[in-house]
């Protein structure tokens, strides 16, 4: 599988001999362009138009993040997989209230089931989560009854709120208290990690959307607007609990990230470069691990699951097979 490239150090990314080279003061590193899926730029990377041309030709996306690790944007090469048919189908399902609700509900259901799965995992390992699980299961029952997107979103917010309260029980570390979900800027360590992880997964999902005929501008749960891509946010909802949250639990459990990896700044809290690196390294490792998917009869990496989810959505839009979100079984 092609690799994601994460750049933290300062340097220049260039096109050379029809491949990529990253030049720093320490020296040159050649990177096989045919083995590169996307570039995540965290550090000060400079590049020129000839690199952008080359990257477009190779259908590689560049996601860039600011100094604080917030997602800033994507260099999105000219669309390579243009399908008017799929866009029309997508728009049709967006505009028809019932059809849209059906898909939006599937996303919320997927997110809910994966959240429940994560809680159950820790419950089976002796954490006191029984009450919380039944509370969330009660809320989950209501997904089918939602007749409006706004109700659905409110319900999802509710579930997530309760779920985040479970974090304190799971993590059990005085330095990492959840308190409440805060964003822009996140007010405590845990919120920094959640935001950082989520923004990476959103951009990865965007890379996958790029490889399908779907249009990232038309989401179903998140309302389509003039500002941003939304389809990737929709699909990422399903994977956030099982990828990012689980990663955070294991990083904190193994003390791979501690409170020393953060620094206070005027604008809020900041994860230091070392912390970001550890996070990204472990995330990359996690995404490469494979699991057996019974319906396919073969092993598939977590990262590949992102794309498969989009293919299922395409099938739904074309009326071939009703979309069922991915639910982790462990």
């Amino acid at each position, binding site marked *: 599988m092609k*690799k994601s*490239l994460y750049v933290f150090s300062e340097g220049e990314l260039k096109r050379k001999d029809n491949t990529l080279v990253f030049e720093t003061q320490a020296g040159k590193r*050649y990177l096989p362009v045919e*083995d590169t899926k996307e570039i995540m730029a965290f550090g000060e990377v400079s590049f020129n138009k000839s690199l952008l041309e080359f990257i477009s030709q190779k259908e590689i996306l560049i996601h860039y993040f600011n100094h604080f690790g917030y997602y800033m944007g994507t260099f999105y090469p000219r669309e390579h997989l243009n399908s008017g048919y799929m866009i029309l189908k997508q728009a049709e399902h967006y505009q028809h209230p019932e059809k849209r609700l059906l898909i939006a509900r599937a996303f919320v259901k997927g997110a809910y089931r994966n959240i429940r799965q994560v809680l159950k995992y820790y419950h089976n390992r002796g954490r006191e989560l029984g009450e919380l699980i039944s509370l969330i299961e009660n809320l989950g029952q209501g997904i089918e009854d939602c007749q409006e997107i706004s109700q659905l979103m409110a319900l999802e917010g509710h579930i997530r709120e309760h779920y985040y309260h479970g974090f304190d029980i799971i993590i059990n570390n005085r330095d990492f208290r959840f308190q409440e979900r805060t964003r822009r800027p996140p007010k405590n360590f845990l919120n920094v990690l959640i935001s950082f992880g989520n923004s990476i997964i959103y951009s990865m999902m965007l890379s996958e959307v790029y490889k399908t005929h779907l249009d990232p501008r038309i989401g179903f749960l998140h309302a389509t607007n003039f500002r941003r891509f939304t389809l990737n946010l929709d699909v990422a909802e399903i994977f956030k609990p099982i990828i990012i949250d689980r990663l955070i639990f294991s990083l904190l459990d193994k003390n791979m990230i501690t409170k020393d990896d953060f620094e206070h700044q005027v604008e809020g809290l900041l994860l230091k470069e070392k912390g970001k690196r550890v996070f990204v390294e472990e995330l990359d490792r996690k995404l490469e691990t494979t699991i057996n998917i019974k319906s396919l009869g073969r092993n598939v990496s977590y990262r590949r699951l992102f794309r498969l989810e989009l293919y299922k959505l395409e099938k739904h839009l074309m009326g071939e097979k009703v979309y069922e979100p991915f639910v982790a079984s462990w």
Partner: protein
Amino acid sequence: MFVIMVYDINEKRVAKVLKRSRKYLYWVQNSVFEGEISETNFNKLKIELSRIIKDKEDSVIFYTFRTTKYSNRETMGLKKGGDDNIL
């Protein structure tokens, strides 16, 4: 699949082979490349190289593995190149 590529090429053409291989694989040492590669890209690489090399003078060897599960990689001394994707 995973590939280890080693080569012994006449000086006149060695730079060309180096440059071509960089597109697909990670350079690890002089005359050694390795990396994960798809079936198609592997064929492309072989075709591209066959156009450069002279059969009577040059030699390229590929070791391919379906997975790296049963292999072990040990190194001594300097780390010259590698397949890091976090820079």
